[in-house]
């Protein structure tokens, strides 16, 4: 699914250069469940942004399903993201003035799905995550676990092949955390791919492959991910 070729991302602040991410070569195959662990500021979010087609590397290429992502025009990258990638955020990033139903409808509307179909699919997805009775609730009227489940329903709305998750269990109670990770397990079982950035050793342990990021350099974890994340 992904092939990263000699990727470097450098941030420049006050005439100082900081290498945010560096990976000589990395392949992520279809159906893989990859956990990326590392301390804060190690470049995890930079990696997710580059995989999501939102941040071009300073050097190297990111191939997504055989195409060099950053050689595509912005509109085409946006379309790829809309059709094939789902995002899960640590703080859920729900639109606060929209109901749970409307939040799930957003990616469907962006995809050009008709209003009636938007509603049907959004209701089905919310029922799937156990929030069928909360569709008219706004995020502020939901618990954090419920908010993340709405966000997951939104992620799955366009039936993505890939989920890019940024600390998906970081703000959750154990039950909600387990619900999210179970959903991820099912997602991978269907042959789809997850790249998850996490501090959570138990969550990382569920992944089929663990990568470690340290000072922007991506390597295969040599030790237990539990110990590394700790």
């Amino acid at each position, binding site marked *: 699914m992904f092939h990263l070729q000699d990727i470097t991302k450098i941030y420049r602040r006050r005439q100082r250069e900081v290498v945010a991410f560096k990976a000589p070569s990395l392949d992520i195959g279809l159906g893989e469940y990859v956990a990326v662990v590392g301390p804060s500021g190690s470049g995890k*979010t930079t990696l*997710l*942004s580059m995989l*999501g087609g*939102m*941040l071009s590397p300073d050097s190297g290429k990111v191939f997504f399903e055989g195409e060099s992502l950053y050689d595509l025009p*912005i*509109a085409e990258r*946006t*379309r790829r*993201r*809309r*059709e094939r990638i789902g*995002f899960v*955020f*640590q*703080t859920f*990033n729900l*639109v*606060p*003035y*929209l109901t749970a139903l*409307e939040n799930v*409808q*957003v*990616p*469907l*509307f*962006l*995809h050009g799905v008709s*209003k009636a179909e*938007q509603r049907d699919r959004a209701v089905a997805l919310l029922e799937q995550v156990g929030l069928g009775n909360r569709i008219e609730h706004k995020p502020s009227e939901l618990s954090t676990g419920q908010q993340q489940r709405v966000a997951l329903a*939104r992620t799955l709305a*366009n039936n993505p092949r890939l989920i890019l998750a*940024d600390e998906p269990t970081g703000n959750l109670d154990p039950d909600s955390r387990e619900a999210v990770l179970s959903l991820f397990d099912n997602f991978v079982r269907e042959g789809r791919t997850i790249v998850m950035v996490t501090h959570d050793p138990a969550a990382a342990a569920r992944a089929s492959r663990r990568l470690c990021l340290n000072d922007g350099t991506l390597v295969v974890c040599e030790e237990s991910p539990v110990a590394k994340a700790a």
Partner: protein
Amino acid sequence: MNLKTLVWRELAERPSAMLTSTLTILLGVTALVAIRHVTVFSEREVGQQLQSLGANVLVLPKDATLQDYYSADLTDRTLPESHVSSILLENLAGVERLSPKLCVSAKVANRDVTLTGILPQSEFQAKAAWQSVSLFSNKHEGCKKAACGPKTYDAAPETLASERTIDQLKGNEAIIGADVAEFSGLKPGQTVELFGEKLQVLAVLPRTGTVDDSRVFAHLHTVQRLTNAGEVVNAIEVMGCCEDAAGGLVPKLAELLPDAKVVTISQVVSTQVGVNRLMSQMSLFVLGILVIVGGASVASTISSNVRERRREVGTLMALGATPSLVTRMFLLKAWALGIVGAVGGSVLGLIVAMVLGSQWAGVAVKPLPDLIALAIGAALVITTLAALWPARSAAKLDPCCCFQEV
């Protein structure tokens, strides 16, 4: 869910964020609509006054005043009738018609009336032919307003009330005003006795609400003969073919007739014309304020909205929103507050104009759809231009900001 729903939900949830801008647009449009409405109707009023007053330029005896002419309508000061021929022979640019008048007191059915001697236009034609001059051939030279082009004179005598001149009037005929007809019971075809001579009533003028209602019009030469006044007139009304030409006529007439006083009718309404001019300038000033203050307010509101919603915009872009959709989202928001401000301002401005127009300017104001559409259009153009830059900057936001923690 669609773009409108997305924008509307936010506006409904946080209306206070947009309140200041909406209020600015609303007040600007209110002032603009109110001032322009009052100005337009005030200008129309002036136009009607000028039309009701008739001539554009008056040639009066040297020591007569405009007030004498309009308030008393009678003066014992006179001008020689030969001045009419002088004007005719000069063939001045912009002269459309001439109407010399001699007014004297008379009695009809034991009531005081003003007997006004007038010269029918047919006699000017005859006079011109006799004097071998081309009648008013130069009248449209200097005209800037096409609307003031040549008129077709209606031969009906009743048109005297509106046109101030008449085509045909015989020496033994009279035309009576509505009041005279009412108290004397005279009708067309009957005779009216004036200074011992019977004149046939040619027509009764429609009611005008002016001194003309209590006048009896007869041929100038008949009035001169009956009153032994000689070949004199009290005033010569000179109808300029348009306002521009009328303005230029005054110095030429004054030069031609040094013993006469030449005044423009517009002097009668000069105060109101001045107020109208001031209000016109004021409306331009208000438009400027609307552009600057309203535009700045909208730009500031949309900019701060973009800043507040950076993460939300980033999330939408991560979910697949294109930059053009993000631009449209913020423009739609600006249009929403522009429309609310413009429509609310138009309604409020109209109410203000209707209330204050009658109180302050003495004019009855009615809605002018074109003006309201123009004000709404201007407000929308201003809000669009003001919101364009912040909306485009929103579209250029780094979508990675969706990963930032709160």
